[in-house]
């Protein structure tokens, strides 16, 4: 079992190094390579989590980096990891892919993430509840699932979720809690 967590919190040296790479990539696309090497795997994992076929994940990851290189001139370094910007592009590419191919996203659920969610809901983890939640999650609204997915299955902080979705950290937190609340209500309805 693997919970993929991108390395969001970086020290100043890493960030400055990243800034240098970004500036170089603005001058020459070939200079994007170290950023590609650093983020290829996290982006591929991020994309694949939302797909059923690995070949589609390769294409969309490649397209994500292509877009990133082409748009790098517009990227403004604000002292935050570059990853959020890449994930945002990846989400756009995924949406474009689903729209064009008339396909839908895949839902990938891992037990450790669900256990974490149950604990956060203030309940004890038991088999029955695990099964109920696992069955209920795919029925959530896609926006709610995205928040829960990033929080519990991808171990992203509210700050990072906020950066990816271009909302404030607080907003990310509030929306995530609301998503969990809605999940709780759905579960309670089922219990009755």
């Amino acid at each position, binding site marked *: 079992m693997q919970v993929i967590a991108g390395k969001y919190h970086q020290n100043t040296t890493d960030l400055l190094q990243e800034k240098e790479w970004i500036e170089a990539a603005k001058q020459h696309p070939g200079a994007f390579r170290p950023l*590609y090497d650093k983020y290829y795997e996290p982006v591929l994992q991020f994309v694949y989590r939302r797909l059923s076929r690995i070949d589609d994940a*390769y294409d969309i990851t*490649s397209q994500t980096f*292509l877009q990133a290189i082409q748009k790098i001139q517009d990227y403004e370094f604000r002292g935050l990891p570059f990853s959020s910007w890449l994930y945002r592009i990846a989400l756009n590419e995924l949406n474009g892919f689903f729209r064009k191919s008339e396909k*839908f996203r895949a*839902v990938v*659920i*891992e*037990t450790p993430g669900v256990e974490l969610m149950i604990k956060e809901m203030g309940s004890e983890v038991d088999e029955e509840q695990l099964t109920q939640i696992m069955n209920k999650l795919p029925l959530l609204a896609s926006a709610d*699932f995205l928040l829960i997915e990033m929080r519990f299955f991808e171990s992203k902080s509210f700050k990072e979720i906020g950066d990816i979705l271009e909302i404030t950290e607080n907003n990310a937190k509030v929306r995530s809690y609301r998503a969990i609340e809605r999940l709780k209500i759905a579960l309670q309805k089922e219990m009755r």
Partner: protein
Amino acid sequence: MKNEGVHKDRNPLSQEEIAKGKNFDAILNKISNTSASQELGTNSLKGKSASWIKPILYTLGLVASIAVVVLLLTKNNANEAVINEEQTAQNVEISINPPFGDEIIPFQTAFINPNEDQLLDIGRSQIRIPANSILDANGKEVTEQVKISFREFHTNSEILVSGIPMHYDSSGTRMYFESAGMFEIKAQIADKPGSEELAIHQEKPIQVSWTSKSNDTYFNQYFYNQDKNEWEFIVKDRAIVMNSESDYLDYKRNNKLAVLEQRILNYDMELSTKVDEQELKLQEEIQKLEAQAPAKPIEAELDAMLVAIDADTKYFPELKAYDGYKFEVLDLDRFDQRKADLEWNSIDVKRGNKKGTYILHFWRPGEDYEVLCKPVLVGEDFEKAQEKYEELFVSYQKGVEQKKAEIRTKLAQVKAEEASRKAEFIEQRKKQLEAIVALRQAEYSASMTMRVFQVRNFGIWNCDAPQYLPQGQEVILVKLDDMGAPLMSSNLYLVEKGRNTLYNMTGRASFEINPEADNVLIAITPTGNIAIADEVVLPAEKEKAECKTNFKVYSDKITTMQDVQNILSSRIDM
């Protein structure tokens, strides 16, 4: 939420699966092809439906192979000419091969001091060379005067004459550049003609702001790698389209101001350094003078151990006041009395670490001995020395004051001179700037697109967009001269009027022509004459067929670019 499927505890990706999709070079290739793909949609697809374009592209290579077979089966004089062309084709295509010699488009030159920021106006371009950016073969900064050579190629005629290959292989597909123009920049040490080419510091690129005749914004920047004989994609071009002449002038003016400010800054630093150096030098003179201050005479202690030596006051001018001085041994506890009874071959005197102390160095074969001392006087000698010291000290003080006054005057003079030089320098630069801006105003009234290159290598650069070869009707070209006789040629080019793309068809037995374009064929005969077919009448058959085309051969000898332009400009240049 609609979903394609739910995966519970799906196996994570293996390292092999992760590595399989990793290919940065493929992404870079896609980037370099993007412009071409975009262009394909707007220019090359005229009158075609997208459904049959793809197979054509995929089979271009196959068509070329079939063409060779057709060539072998067709037996007429015209095709023998094609065979000759085939033999020369590789030379024409794979390397720079100017059909009328390399000198026909002359370089414009400028001589620069590479140690300071430079802004050159050569032709229609502005070249900014950062200080210390030019390196020799060993990677060392060049300090001698450097000769910068620069020339531009804008039109189809100029590109044809340059002989620079204009094809670009993109993922195995041969494409041709639609050009927004090219330039070539070279550098050599000025007084070493024929010396090896210099290089550019990778962190201090030369900025070439280059005025392009094309206002289009879909071009890329490429560098021609002469070792590999291929174009290398560098970056997407960012054309700065000037909306008005004043924008253009502002752009140029800002560049000039930036260089001017940098130069003033550098010059200011240089002047400050000069003044500092001068100040330091004068300070040293004062210190030297102060070291010559006469030492105040000291009377010997009553129980002192004294050594009488006549040291040369040339080396110890501070002892001048001491007639009859002696050296009193310091640190008596460590003094070895027995040494005083020995006979020594030589005694050297040197200054001790502490001011007013001296070291006496005694030597005799097999032994030496050092004693720390201070100069002292005894009885009458002391009284006389005191009197002399008063005189010497007054004279010394006077000398020092005089010297300090001299130094202050000199320093003020140096500072004033430097300030005046700086003011003059700034004034000169301002005048230069005004003159250049005024000149630009007159010169540039039409060209409004600026393309900026960060040049990290000397050589040939272009601002182009790859295009597919023309498509439509495939022909076997049969070239005929004015008299209807087969025309031999060493070079053959196709131009679609209205586009700045020169397709080199040299050596191709057959090729496709876009029936909707206004096509012009240009041939260079083996004797170096230009032949033109202004009209290409395509055969009625839609399948590949012979296309007999009459060329007008110009007997004019080609020695200058003007000769070429007289014949070609009105026909193929935009």
